[in-house]
């Protein structure tokens, strides 16, 4: 199972862990990345809608093959987000718990480098910066 979602709405990480757990594998790991940064007041996350879901799916498929995962969930949000808001969920289920753990770290790195999302940070002092 590879479930990829690109959405503006928030998500419940606990629910995603439960969904992976329902697949029946011993190892279930989930990582949630949040919006944060010193002095940050707001972040604008945009994406290439025609490409982002396919790229995330490709990343999920690569991880599934490499770590023999039984389940992968990737959820990436876009739009205007505030400090503390959830931005990404990366979850993996596998028979080997270490595989699930390694896969989650790899998923986050791969999304960071290869998913067509961009973020502009706006700061309390009125400045802004693209990451």
């Amino acid at each position, binding site marked *: 199972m590879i479930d990829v979602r690109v959405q503006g709405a928030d998500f419940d990480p606990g629910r995603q862990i439960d969904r992976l757990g329902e697949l029946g594998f011993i190892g279930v790991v989930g990582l949630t990345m949040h919006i944060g940064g010193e002095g940050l007041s707001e972040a604008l996350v945009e994406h290439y809608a025609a490409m982002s879901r396919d790229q995330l799916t490709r990343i999920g498929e690569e991880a599934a093959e490499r770590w023999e995962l039984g389940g992968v969930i990737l959820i990436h949000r876009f739009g205007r987000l505030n400090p503390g808001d959830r931005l990404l969920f990366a979850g993996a289920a596998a028979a080997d718990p270490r595989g699930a753990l390694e896969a989650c770290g790899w998923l*986050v790195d791969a999304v960071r480098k290869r998913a067509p999302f961009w973020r502009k940070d706006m700061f309390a002092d009125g400045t802004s910066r693209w990451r």
Partner: protein
Amino acid sequence: MIGGLDILYFGSLREALDRDSERVEPPSHVQTVEDLIGWLAGRGGAYAQALGDRSRVGAAVDQEPARPSDSFFGAREVALFPPMGAL
């Protein structure tokens, strides 16, 4: 090129060029992604500034990640963007 080529801009490139897309008709000698970026940068002004550092410009041809040496022959759209990632 019949009908032209749609160029899409994202992130800081979109902001620097003050547009999210445009339709262009590159000359016949412009065949690769690298050629295209160079041709656009050759317009000068904001284009030269935004596209001048090629190491900071990524591309996708018809929604597929592309290398500088890749051809865009027959493509309908080319997306140009800064390094990917919002994390």
